[in-house]
C-alpha cells in the first residue's frame, strides 16, 4: 500500500481550485468530471510534482457530518491539514500581500515554526517549517 493522496473538503471546487493554484501556487494534476457538476480534482505542489496529490473534495455539500466537522474545526481555529515550507515567515509575508488571512502569525513551537491561514473554502491550513 502507498499513501499518495490527501483530501481537503471544500464548499466550492472552482473557488478552491483558484485559491490553491493562484495564491498557493499548486498545479493541476487531474480533473475528471463526475455527476452533478462534481469533479475529481487533484493538485500537486509545484516544487514536488511527483509528490502526494491534494484532492479538493466537495464533501461538505453532499454529506452533512462533513460540513459539521469542517465548521467546528474552522470555528476553533484548528487546521484541517498542514503543508511543509522552507520558510514560514517568507510565506506569511507573501500570502498576506496576496490577501490571504492568517488566524495565527508565525509562531515557534519547539523545533518547528507554524502559522495558520484561511483557505476561503472552509478550512484553516497550517504551514510548518522545521527549525
Amino acid at each position, binding site marked *: 500500500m502507498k499513501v499518495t493522496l490527501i483530501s481537503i473538503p471544500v464548499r466550492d471546487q472552482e473557488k478552491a481550485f483558484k485559491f490553491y493554484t493562484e495564491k498557493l501556487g499548486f498545479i493541476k494534476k487531474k480533473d475528471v468530471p463526475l455527476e452533478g457538476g462534481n469533479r475529481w480534482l487533484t493538485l500537486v505542489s509545484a516544487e514536488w510534482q511527483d509528490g502526494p496529490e491534494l484532492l479538493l473534495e466537495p464533501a461538505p455539500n453532499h454529506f452533512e457530518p462533513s460540513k459539521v466537522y469542517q465548521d467546528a474545526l474552522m470555528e476553533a*481555529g484548528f487546521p484541517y491539514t498542514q503543508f511543509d515550507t522552507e520558510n514560514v515567515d517568507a510565506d506569511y509575508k507573501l500570502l498576506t500581500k496576496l490577501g490571504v488571512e492568517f488566524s495565527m502569525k508565525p509562531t515557534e513551537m519547539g523545533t518547528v515554526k507554524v502559522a495558520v491561514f484561511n483557505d476561503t473554502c472552509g478550512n484553516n491550513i497550517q504551514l510548518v517549517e522545521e527549525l
Partner: protein
Amino acid sequence: MTFYEKELNRIRSIAYSNQGQINTVIGIRNYIENNYDVNLNLDLLSHIQFVSKYHLLRLFKKYYGLTPRQYLIDKRIEKSKEHLINGMSVTETCFAVGFESLGSFSTLFKTKTGKSPTKFQKEQLSRSKLDSEF
C-alpha cells in the same frame, strides 16, 4: 486568540519548556543539514554541542521523533534523488551525498524509495524526455 492557538500555547509550556534542549537539537539538525555529505557520527555531533553522545541521541529522538542517523539517511536519500534527476551517475551520487559504499547506498535507496538508484534515474530521465517530446 483561537482555541487552537490556546491549545498550542498550553502544549508548548509542557512539551517545549526546556529551551536549552531545543537549542541543542536544532543546532544538531542544522549541522546535519549543512554537513550531510561528509562522514558524520555521534561523537562528532556531541562534540559540537558539548553533550554526551547518548544524551544527544535521546534528545534528538525526543524532539524530532527519529535518531540523528535516521535523519541523516533521509536527508542523503532526498539529496541523492536531486543529483540523479540532474543526471549525475549513481556512483558519483553515492559519494556526493556522503555514503561510503555503493552497496549500502543502493540498498538504502531501494528500501526508502521502492526502486534502485539506476531504475529511479532511468524513469526520471525518460519522463523528462517524454515531456519535451509531447
